[in-house]
């Protein structure tokens, strides 16, 4: 029952965040601020992680393709497939649940604790539209982050293989081998869903939290746990629907 009421409240929160919109002048300012905080400021960490994990994926693939009968180009192929299908959209989203999700929960939670949300309500402003809606819109740009992750991870694999002595022509031809455009579509469909989850689940945990400063920390942790779980479950369902 407890989870059912939470789920109901979550969907009501989403519905309410589209009601009683603030003036466009204000909304535009909030959306640009959120794009900066949630998207632009995430690029450096995404780039660093993607480069090194792409490298590790390529090295591990190479380790498992040691047979002289297998073409070296398969390393590039496997790296591309791993990065596009799973690493960039899913793994990166779980990392973002930690970075962006915790930020969203703690910022909204702190506003709840310090009565700033009550102040918005008293002024006759819809706090959900003011706080959650700009985050949902800003995270529509999340596929851009994942695109960066895809390119940099594959480049990381290329650099790792260059150091390992794998001919660069072989790796590049592997990247181009048997390319299936639908796999990219699948990755972006997942990414859009994960973006929505990243914007709304942490907002829910921040908005409805109760207590003081200690509870803000607890809410951030809980938000990360639930966002990750929901991303993994949605990933499974989408993969079943689109690829099985």
């Amino acid at each position, binding site marked *: 029952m407890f989870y059912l009421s939470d789920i109901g409240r979550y969907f009501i929160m989403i519905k309410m965040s589209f009601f009683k919109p603030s003036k466009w002048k204000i909304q535009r300012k909030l959306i640009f601020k959120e794009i900066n905080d949630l998207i632009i400021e995430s690029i450096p960490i995404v780039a660093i992680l993607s480069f090194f994990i792409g490298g590790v994926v390529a090295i591990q693939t190479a380790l498992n393709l040691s047979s002289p009968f297998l073409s070296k180009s398969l390393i590039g192929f496997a790296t591309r497939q791993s990065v596009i299908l799973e690493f960039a959209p899913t793994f990166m989203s779980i990392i973002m649940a930690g970075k962006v999700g915790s930020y969203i929960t703690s910022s909204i939670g*702190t506003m709840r604790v310090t009565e700033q949300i009550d102040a918005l309500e008293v002024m006759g402003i819809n706090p959900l539209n003011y706080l959650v809606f700009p985050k949902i819109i800003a995270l529509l740009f999340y596929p851009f982050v994942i695109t960066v992750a895809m390119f940099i991870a594959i480049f990381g694999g290329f650099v790792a293989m260059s150091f390992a002595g794998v001919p660069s022509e072989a790796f590049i031809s592997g990247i181009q081998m048997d390319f299936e455009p639908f796999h990219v579509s699948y990755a972006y469909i997942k990414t859009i869903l994960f973006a929505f989850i990243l914007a709304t689940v942490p907002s829910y945990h921040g908005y409805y939290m109760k207590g003081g400063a200690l509870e803000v920390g607890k809410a951030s942790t809980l938000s990360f746990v639930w966002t990750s779980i929901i991303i993994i479950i949605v990933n499974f369902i989408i993969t079943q629907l689109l690829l099985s």
Partner: protein
Amino acid sequence: MIEIKNIHKSFDGNSIIKGISTSFEKGKTNLIIGQSGSGKTVLLKCLLGLHNPDSGEIIYDGVSNLKMTESEKTLLRRQMGMVFQGSALFDSMSVIENVMFPLDMLTDYNEEEIRDKAKKAIERVELTKAIEKLPSEISGGMQKRVAIARAIVMNPKYLFCDEPNSGLDPKTAIVIDKLIQEITREFNITTIVNSHDMNSVVEIGEKIVFLVSGVKNWEGTNKEILKTDNKSVTDFVYSSELLKKVKNHL
């Protein structure tokens, strides 16, 4: 003027407000006092419309909350100013941006008019020097002044203050109390202050409602409260040794 008639409010079967009826007068500083847990904040939130009473009626200048549509309730809220216990200023905004915020969000004035009105409100609370500072860069007393400026910038008909001088030193607390009283008279608004500070009661309590466990136990003025024989009131008013000594000299 705000009248309340037989208000009840409970949470999870736990009754917090038990049939309170009273009125809060226009142009006066009305105080709701009582011990922690007596239902002051819940009553204030009912008046603000943040909680819906389970039963009873709240009448704002002759208009009952029971007959208001949702849009009328939203319009009513725009006639209310609120000073929160912790000021509730927006951390990322400067003093002037905090005061400009309700005008920015809710009115069609242009940028220049909004800035002018905000500046006037800030001047009224004598905070002109801190206009570009962030809330974290000013003292607790100054934050309360900003909260008052933000509350009055929309020219409200009703001003609500939840323990406005909590966490302040006695001298600053009195300055804030006096400021609230001056603004109430100057703008001729209905002000309701939630407090358990005896200094506020004596300084600005033109009408006082005393709550005990969600029930109205006593009401009167700051002069009457010092002379009443009501035991619950005297136990509350003269709870400290200092005040007991003062009582002996009255």
